[in-house]
């Protein structure tokens, strides 16, 4: 480290301390993020965590409780992990399991991991600890002994994971086992089926199998992580032998980031929309100066760097991320390139919203969020210009701004590394999302042509199918409770395991709403959960995806619930409205449907509908199909 670096770090600390003492949270948060990106390490981490502690009154993170079960020293990774989580808006509380005590901790029903009810558990164990035979004693084994060892270790894993799943609802992230840098048989190892590397890989394939069979269990490919940064530089044998830390100092942050890629989606910290700049981001050069012929985009250098960015964007599009453009260009020139340039991999219709003008980008981003019916925190922003990035960070701190390196050849990698788009499960809705937004634009065009709102609703030819939760929809239902912020009356987040438990609970009823209209299938977009006790039904959860807000589908769903409750003999239907910074669209829901306010506490207000004297009329323009069992009375 040179003196200049020390001075830069000191000036970061001075600026951050000043912003914190002035209570300027958005400046402090953006500087903390920048400090971390430039100087990740133990000292920065402990400074960051202390600063976030001071910002607590104005910092509004998601809390996530993590337990790390391990067979090696992970302590130095934890503060790095907590610092990167904090920069990503997550207040991560971590407990570490006993050294090499993971098996007891998983198997013992009285283990503290089952008493603390964490959100997530990481099982970070190494090949040399779980199967030392395959790591250092491989040459001693006969082919039969190898096969038996593989089978035995998988049986142990299965036992640990089953014990865990039967006692905990937390997500479980299981590390794969790494292969050795130098196999004991040298190059011969690659020639035989029962080689050392292949045996370890077959354990990893078995782990994937177990994870696929068990809900809420995910694989973290530790072996691929080590390979990504280099097997030869990842390890520090001296520290392994002295303090049981197997990973070299400069690689610890990579493990922390890898864990964070799992924690972000599990904590509900993910972006739904990627907003991109055009000049020098989606293509090389400036449309207004270089023109259609002069810009760089194509299969060869230097245009290939931008095709790689577009390929990464297409991959995100297929994963359900909505794409949008926010750029300072002459719209005609930019649209010409988007629509007709032969080097473009992306097509104009794949962008759900376009803001190509000379306005301030912060304002454009707010408009894009409003047009797509999402909060600004659902946006991620990709722009090659550091000034624009800093401007957006300072003006709309909720937006996730993706940091880009200097060389365009590295842009695609930076985009792929952004953990805000990570997802652990892909629903059918995710895969089709891009198309939904295309249809949404057609709907908006129709709305502009309709004379009254009723006309517009009728012309949509809406159909709602309201049914129970099915095994294949549990993932989507859990996702709806995790991700829906705007039309959500109580904003209670549930895991898949909790949804499953409620679907089996006779006092609970779950209503899943699927919507269709003349432009296409919107998929599963609405959810209500009710609980019955004595003569009363309480609405625990009621939400609508932002994709269908403002189309009266919520009234259709409420009508079905009221009817169902009445048929079950309930005299009253009640529900809480819990206000959040984002759920204003749902604020008037109960009052507009004839509920009366009967209570209030610091969390929200309680509303009541007298089912003996009132009913809810389903809107005549929606064809409703109900497929649920008779309620038990």
């Amino acid at each position: 480290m040179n003196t200049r670096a020390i001075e830069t770090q000191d000036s970061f600390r001075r600026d951050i301390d000043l912003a914190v003492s002035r209570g300027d949270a958005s400046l402090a948060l953006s500087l903390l993020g920048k400090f971390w990106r430039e100087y990740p390490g133990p000292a920065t981490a402990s400074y960051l965590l202390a600063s976030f502690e001071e910002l607590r009154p104005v910092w509004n993170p998601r809390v996530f409780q993590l337990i790390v079960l391990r067979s090696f020293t992970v302590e130095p990774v934890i503060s790095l992990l907590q610092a990167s989580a904090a920069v990503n808006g997550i207040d991560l509380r971590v407990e570490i399991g006993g050294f090499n005590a993971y098996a007891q901790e998983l198997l013992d029903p009285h283990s503290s991991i089952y008493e603390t009810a964490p959100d997530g558990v990481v099982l970070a164990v190494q090949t040399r600890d779980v199967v030392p035979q395959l790591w250092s004693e491989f040459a001693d084994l006969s082919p039969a002994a190898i096969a038996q060892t593989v089978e035995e270790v998988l049986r142990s894993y299965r036992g640990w994971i089953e014990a865990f799943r039967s006692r905990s609802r937390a997500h479980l992230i299981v590390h794969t086992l790494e292969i050795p840098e130098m196999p004991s048989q040298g190059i011969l190892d690659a020639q035989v089926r029962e080689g050392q590397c292949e045996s370890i890989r077959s354990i990893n394939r078995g782990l994937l199998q177990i994870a696929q069979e068990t809900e809420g269990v995910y694989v973290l490919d530790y072996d691929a992580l080590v390979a990504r940064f280099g097997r030869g530089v990842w390890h520090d044998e001296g520290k392994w032998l002295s303090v049981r830390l197997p990973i070299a100092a400069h690689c610890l942050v990579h493990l922390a980031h890898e864990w964070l890629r799992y924690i972000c989606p599990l904590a509900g910290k993910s972006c739904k929309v990627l907003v991109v700049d055009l000049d020098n981001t989606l293509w090389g050069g400036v449309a207004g100066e270089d023109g259609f012929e002069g810009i760089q985009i194509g299969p060869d250098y230097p245009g290939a760097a931008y095709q790689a960015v577009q390929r990464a964007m297409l991959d995100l599009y297929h994963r359900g991320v909505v794409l949008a453009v926010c750029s300072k260009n002459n719209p005609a020139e930019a649209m010409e390139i988007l629509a007709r340039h032969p080097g473009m991999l992306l097509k104009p219709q794949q962008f759900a919203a376009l803001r190509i003008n000379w306005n301030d980008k912060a304002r454009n981003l707010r408009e894009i969020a409003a047009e797509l019916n999402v909060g600004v925190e659902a946006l991620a922003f990709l722009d090659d210009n550091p000034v624009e990035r800093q401007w957006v960070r300072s003006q709309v701190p909720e937006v996730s701004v993706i940091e880009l390196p200097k060389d365009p050849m590295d842009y695609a990698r930076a985009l792929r590394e952004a953990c805000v788009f990570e997802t652990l499960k892909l629903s059918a809705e995710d895969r089709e999302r891009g198309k939904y937004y295309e249809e949404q634009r057609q709907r908006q065009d129709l709305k502009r042509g309709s004379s009254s709102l009723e006309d517009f609703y009728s012309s949509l030819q809406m159909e709602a199918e309201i049914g129970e939760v099915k095994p294949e929809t549990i993932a989507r239902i859990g996702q709806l409770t995790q991700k829906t912020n705007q039309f959500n009356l109580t904003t209670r987040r549930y895991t898949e395991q909790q949804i499953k438990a409620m679907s089996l609970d006779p006092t609970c009823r779950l209503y899943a709403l699927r919507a269709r209209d003349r432009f296409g299938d919107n998929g599963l977009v609405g959810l209500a959960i009710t609980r019955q006790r004595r003569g009363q039904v309480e609405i625990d959860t009621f939400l609508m995806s932002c994709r269908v807000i403002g189309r009266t589908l919520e009234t259709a769903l409420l009508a079905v619930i009221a009817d169902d409750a009445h048929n079950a003999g309930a005299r009253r239907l009640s529900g809480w409205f819990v206000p959040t910074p984002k759920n204003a669209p749902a604020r008037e829901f109960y009052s507009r449907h004839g509920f009366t306010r009967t209570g209030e506490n610091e969390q929200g207000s309680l509303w009541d509908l007298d089912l003996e004297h009132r009913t809810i009329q389903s809107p005549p323009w929606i064809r409703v199909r109900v497929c649920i069992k008779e309620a038990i009375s």
Partner: protein
Amino acid sequence: MTDSIAERVRRIATGIFQVPLDRVLIQSSPETIETWDSLQHLNLVLELEQVFGVRFSPDEMAQMVTVEAIVGILERKGLPEADSGS
């Protein structure tokens, strides 16, 4: 000189141990700095390795019991490039 190895180690130590610079002296040790426990010692080692681009052996780690000892070890290692701060 603000850029001597001793000065840089002191500054790094203040960051790791979260104590003011005037509390970290050349003779400081785990006995004089309360937050210098075994975990923070490991963090100090890792931070020094990253910023100086070196790797300490288990023996060296065991000898790093005062700021002075750390400076001595770093000097003996012969740093790749002692940037004199432009």
